[in-house]
């Protein structure tokens, strides 16, 4: 039998089983709560088992999957984020918005409102959420596929994270990219906008996949193998082919990562998507693609022509991402632009290979994940079933007076994203500075500082708005967030604070990763932590 020479990280079969069970349960009787529970249990099991695998790794390294520290760490982040996102969607999916009887009529009534906006897509983007929660569909028919698609997307992300070969990488990328349009189209009450965003994502994801696939094809033509590895010119490989392959693969990955020449789609799509799905795009898919990017470029020495290319991309990504974020009025759009900028910071660390790199990348990814998830969880908790959906920045005015707990958590997350000490973000940015200094990337670090200053403006602006005393006395004390959202926010805040105070917890599991020597060198850890300075 063939089973003896298969090597498979356990989360993949676990997620597959979970998806199969969920399909069976949907076929038996539709129940959103049960589906969400199955999804949560599956993700929890997958998260626990990120480090284990089935079968033995082949000795010659020809396996399709690979499970080293980097893969396990990023897989853990992916699993944790997916778990948080499913928890975030719990209320939206199974909440009290079950006007089953009147659903279709409301849908008919909102038709005139949405019809004129078909001709003017820009109008739909700026439309105020007047009938935000007018559930146009009854909730029993709408939420079924949600957890299924989240699980499928997570499966794709896991396949990408563990991939050591182009084939599982590309298939995972496609699974993720195909399940996202379905998720994006889930937004309640903004059907046209959500469908527009889904179509935009589908087309641009297709284009970038085509570029990536072309690059993979060229790399295969050059090296004759689908294993990850940079095609290096020389010994029979024409330099032009190797260069074209590398550039096209990089372009495809940057497209998915929304680095700057290819960034325009992210704010539009994230604004059109529901809040948890926007978090999914900002966190899970970014981590997965970034993990593969690092894996791909760790398989060989980057050719010299990449230097100028990466320099340009990084500088542009940081500056444009931050500049775009300055004038946003929608919170999800702002988060999208800030996510572009954070990808730029990450690329600085990616561009500085060395013994410090895995720890730096791990710390920054963890900081970015925790803080971004925290912001999105706060947005979700702020949304009320019959009021705002929390994505307009002006709605947050005076939140410190009406809902102090939520405002404090939000402020903490924003401070962490901006890189101010109590949060984990400060430490992560510090690490990037240290890594960059190690490689004398003066210009890039200058840009990082400039970008961080711009970031301070728009992050602190939200906090300032939340501190403005409300003109009316705050009467409408909402019913408060649901318990699972509160718990989620507390957990994420604790991660942000504890990670900021004791950062060694986060980078410690990563440090001996790429060091071939027998002694697990703990020296760099001590040299880098801010406490020891």
């Amino acid at each position, binding site marked *: 039998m063939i089973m003896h020479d*298969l090597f498979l990280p356990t989360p*993949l079969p676990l997620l597959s089983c979970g998806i199969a069970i969920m399909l069976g349960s949907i076929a038996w009787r539709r129940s959103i709560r049960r589906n969400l529970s199955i999804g949560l249990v599956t993700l929890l099991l997958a998260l626990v088992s990120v480090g284990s695998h089935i079968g033995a790794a082949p000795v010659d390294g020809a396996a*399709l999957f690979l499970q080293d520290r980097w893969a396990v760490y990023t897989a853990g982040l992916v699993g944790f984020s997916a778990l948080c996102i499913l928890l975030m969607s719990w209320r939206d999916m199974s909440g009290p918005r079950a006007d089953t009887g009147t659903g279709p009529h409301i*849908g008919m009534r909102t038709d005139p409102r949405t019809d004129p906006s078909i001709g003017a897509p820009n109008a739909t983007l700026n439309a105020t959420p007047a009938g935000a929660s007018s559930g146009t569909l009854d909730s029993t028919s*709408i939420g079924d596929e949600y957890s299924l698609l989240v699980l499928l997307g997570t499966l794709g992300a896991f396949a990408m994270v563990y991939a050591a070969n182009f*084939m599982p990488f590309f298939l995972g990328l496609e699974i993720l990219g195909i399940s996202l*349009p379905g998720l994006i*189209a889930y937004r309640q009450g903004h059907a046209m906008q959500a469908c527009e965003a889904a179509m935009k994502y589908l087309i641009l994801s297709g284009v970038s996949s085509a570029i990536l696939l072309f690059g993979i094809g060229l790399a295969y033509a050059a090296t004759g193998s689908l294993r990850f590895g940079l095609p290096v010119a020389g010994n029979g490989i024409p330099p032009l082919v190797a260069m074209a392959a590398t550039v096209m693969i990089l372009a495809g990955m940057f497209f998915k990562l929304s680095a700057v020449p290819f960034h325009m789609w992210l704010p539009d799509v994230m604004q059109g998507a529901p809040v948890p799905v926007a978090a999914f795009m900002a966190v899970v898919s970014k981590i997965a693609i970034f993990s593969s990017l690092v894996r791909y470029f760790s398989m060989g020495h980057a050719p010299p022509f990449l230097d100028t290319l990466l320099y340009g991309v990084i500088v542009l990504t940081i500056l444009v991402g931050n500049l775009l974020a300055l004038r946003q009025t929608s919170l999800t759009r702002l988060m999208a632009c800030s996510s572009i900028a954070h990808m730029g910071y990450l690329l600085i660390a990616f561009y500085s290979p060395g013994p410090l790199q895995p720890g730096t990348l791990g710390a920054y990814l963890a900081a970015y994940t925790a803080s971004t998830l925290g912001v999105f969880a706060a947005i979700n908790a702020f949304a009320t079933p019959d009021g705002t959906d929390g994505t307009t920045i002006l709605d947050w005015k005076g939140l410190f007076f009406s809902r102090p707990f939520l405002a404090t958590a939000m402020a903490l997350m924003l401070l962490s994203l901006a890189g101010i000490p109590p949060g984990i973000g400060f430490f992560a940015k510090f690490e990037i500075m240290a890594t960059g200094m190690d490689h004398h990337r003066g210009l890039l670090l200058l840009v990082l500082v400039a970008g961080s200053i711009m970031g301070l403006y728009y992050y602190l602006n939200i906090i300032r708005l939340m501190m403005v005393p409300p003109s009316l006395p705050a009467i409408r004390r909402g019913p408060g967030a649901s318990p699972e959202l509160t718990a989620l926010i507390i957990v994420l805040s604790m991660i942000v604070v504890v990670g900021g105070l004791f950062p060694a917890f986060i980078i410690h599991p990563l440090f001996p990763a790429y060091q071939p020597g027998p002694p697990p060198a703990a020296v760099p850890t001590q040299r880098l932590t801010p406490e020891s300075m």
Partner: protein
Amino acid sequence: MHAPIPHALGLLCAATTLVGAMMVITRKVVVHAVLYLVVTLLALAVVLALLGAPFAAALEVIIYAGAIMVLFVFVVMMLNLGQADSARESEWMRPRAWLGPALLAALLCAELLYALPSLLAPLPPPFAGPATETPLPPAPPLFRLGVHDVGLSLFGPYVLMVELVSFLLLAGLVSAFHIGRRRAEER
């Protein structure tokens, strides 16, 4: 021993592909573009066959030139349902429209017929020995990738990838179903 397939034949096929693709993106009428697209895909299939991958060539013809093109034509017909006047349809289908694709297709057919004896011939041993002083530059492919090989690798080392592809299809199905149903119910 049949004559080896000359390189020029492969280049001719590739040129046909390019010409067809350029015609696809420059046509103004969708039906004409679809006609050229069929020719492009057929030319690609011939290239694959010449490269020694008859199974891939067959798949290309069956799936792309066959099934997907039928879908294309079907959608074009559906979209024009409102203003379906047969006059315009016959205007589209004038000989001038299909003459180009037909010529290209005939060229492809001739190439395939010319190369068929060498494609069907038994494969030569990989290297008979250094006896032949004049190495044949346009050597025929040393192996053919048939159904057997593809099946073996799909159910051997790549069986996990087959599973992943099944999940990809599932994701596509669920996504498309969800978006389509929403749009239908919102109307």
